[in-house]
């Protein structure tokens, strides 16, 4: 029931807004639908709090400690983004960067995207998971090219082709998985791809097939996560799309893709009693974070900068999942949470700043603090949070990751710290210049539309100082599950 509500709300919203999305009140409807989704997610969360892991609709959907908080997080970020985009897209229309038709497209696809995210998270069927992720790509590819600028088109095309190829490889991996499973679970019916069933029998799955399958799945979903060297679509897509889209791409899509990878990793690691999957993920994570950290030094476009920072953080999380073990997984889950909260808020503020400055080129954005103090502080604090400055939550997760790495893989710790410091130097240098200093523009009215940003940063701050027991319990269970 609640599951139906959770999924149907955005789907219905998508259909409705697909036709009426250009009306004057459409943004409000968008917000309302997202709010409804969020409420449903909360309800679902409460449900699992009381019932524990549950299956819905004949095993087709299920919620366990691993995805429950991701569902809540997705719904929440979806909601805040809708709030932000309400004002933001209005201004875009005023600036005549998009017309009514494309506003309709935007609203419809936005809800569709949220739907696919939630579907991917809650489905019990790895095939449906694949379908949902493909759908998410299809929904966002048009959002990325919403402005129809040459850059937008190019970014969308690359996004489409690279992720399309990737996702196809992932499907091949799924086929192999199915092939391995169907020998145990029988190919009749659809339960051979049911995660819950697979997870029970993962011990007996054929190691050889699964190792092949994992390679395809990793390369496939890894493209979506943005692992180096499969990441090339990511900065382009983030930089060229509207700010809300960049926010949900970074805040939600990457998380869900990583979620898919981890789900597969659980099976593979269970099946083949070697650290293959873990090592692969660690290798990719390490490569990703290091390269991204250095690439940060070359950025001129503010959204591109934060896109690369997302790549770096995904690398960190992947690395942590690769290490495995209760502490590392705990840290990685925490990292996913705080990253999506912080990064989405960063894209809000960055988008706001870029909208005011009329450009995304960082040399041209200056004196934000003078322009509008609340936005300036939001950007500054968000940046410090994402750079792992205490007392924000990112610091906690990175602290845990570093000490675990120190225990299990001492060789990795220098790289980790190098990454942190290099990324810090690169990002902070630019953001400081943006926030501080003088600006020719006149000061804007104090009233800011960034309540959501501060709410998210407050959450991140809280996660740094105090993790609610339920959340901690979920993290622990999930960490246990991931192993």
């Amino acid at each position, binding site marked *: 029931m609640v599951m139906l509500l959770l999924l149907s709300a955005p789907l219905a919203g998508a259909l409705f807004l697909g036709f009426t999305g250009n009306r004057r009140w459409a943004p409000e409807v968008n917000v309302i639908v997202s709010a409804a989704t969020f409420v449903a997610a909360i309800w679902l969360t409460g449900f699992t709090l009381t019932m524990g892991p549950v299956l819905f609709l004949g095993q087709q959907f299920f919620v366990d400690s691993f995805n429950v908080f991701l569902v809540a997080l997705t719904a929440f970020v979806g909601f805040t983004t809708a709030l932000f985009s309400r004002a933001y897209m209005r201004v875009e229309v005023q600036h005549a960067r998009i017309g009514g038709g494309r506003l309709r497209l935007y609203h419809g696809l936005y809800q569709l995207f949220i739907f696919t995210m939630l579907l991917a998270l809650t489905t019990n069927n790895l095939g449906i998971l694949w379908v949902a992720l493909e759908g998410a790509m299809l929904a966002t590819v048009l959002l990325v090219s919403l402005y*129809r600028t040459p*850059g937008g088109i190019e970014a969308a095309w690359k996004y489409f082709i690279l992720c399309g190829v990737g996702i196809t490889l992932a499907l091949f991996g799924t086929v192999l998985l199915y092939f391995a499973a169907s020998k145990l679970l029988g190919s009749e019916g659809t339960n051979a791809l049911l995660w819950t069933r697979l997870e029970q029998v993962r011990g007996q799955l054929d190691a050889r097939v699964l190792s092949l399958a994992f390679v395809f799945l990793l390369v496939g979903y890894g493209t979506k996560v943005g692992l180096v060297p499969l990441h090339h679509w990511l900065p382009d897509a983030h930089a060229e799309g509207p700010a809300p889209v960049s926010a949900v791409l970074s805040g939600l899509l990457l998380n869900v893709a990583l979620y898919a990878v981890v789900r597969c990793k659980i099976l593979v690691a269970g099946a083949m009693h070697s650290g293959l999957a873990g090592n692969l993920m660690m290798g990719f994570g390490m490569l990703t974070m290091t390269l991204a950290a250095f690439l940060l030094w070359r950025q001129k476009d503010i959204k591109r900068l934060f896109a690369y920072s997302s790549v770096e953080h995904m690398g960190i999380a992947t690395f942590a999942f690769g290490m495995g073990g209760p502490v590392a997984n705990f840290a990685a889950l925490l990292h996913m949470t705080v990253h999506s909260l912080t990064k989405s808020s960063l894209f809000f503020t960055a988008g706001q700043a870029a909208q005011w400055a009329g450009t995304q080129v960082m040399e041209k954005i200056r004196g934000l603090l003078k322009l509008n103090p609340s936005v300036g502080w939001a950007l500054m604090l968000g940046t410090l949070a994402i750079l792992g400055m205490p007392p924000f939550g990112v610091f906690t997760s990175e602290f845990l990751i570093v000490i675990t790495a120190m225990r299990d893989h001492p060789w990795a710790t220098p790289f980790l710290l190098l990454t942190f410091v290099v990324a810090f130097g690169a990002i902070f240098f630019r953001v400081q210049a943006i926030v501080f200093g003088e600006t020719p523009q006149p000061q804007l009215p104090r009233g800011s539309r960034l309540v959501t940003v501060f709410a998210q940063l407050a959450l991140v701050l809280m996660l740094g100082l105090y993790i609610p027991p339920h959340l901690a319990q979920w993290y622990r269970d999930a960490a246990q599950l991931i192993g």
Partner: protein
Amino acid sequence: MASLPLELINTCAALLLLLSFAMLSQRRVLTQVDLYAAQGLVLSVSIFITAWSTHQLHLYFSCGLTLLLKVLVLPLILRRLIHRLDANWETETLLNMPSVLLIGLLLVMFAFVLAQPISELATTLTHGTLGIALAVVMLAFLMMITRRKAVSQVVGFLAMENGLLFAAASTTYGMPMAVELGVGLDVLVGMIILGIFLFHIREQFESLDLSHLESLKED
């Protein structure tokens, strides 16, 4: 079951591989689309044979789906696109043709080696064809890499899908129904969106040459 269907299926597999090579070496885009349609046909035939020989209902269904999508709808869309964009000629590939084919050959061998041990495990009759399916996927991938035009990249993309379906059909008698439907839907939608994009690219860059899409980069 008789060895006849098996031989038939293996023939189909061989045909698929042949068609992939043909696509890889083909310069004219329209011909590529025709080859793609042919591939779809062979694929549906092989699925049909499998269904017929193993009496699996949902395989008939997926056979029909394949026929509908890959033989009729998609090629139709593609042809119309190409006519509207008059993109029916391909410049040189990035690599010269013989070397591309040589690489393709190596890939096929690699795919066979890779698939060998797995198809041992398969309980299905048609397990031997997994290697071919993998080879088809890889050849399609290679084609996407080597082509300069947007359209032929699309065709390569779709060809990959074919290889995939073939793998599914041959190793596990197809995927679960829901998944098949989803995949079909996605491919269709994807195709449509790609079509839209081709037009956008067209109107932005007055050409479908991918060399125009190289402005976003780290300099």
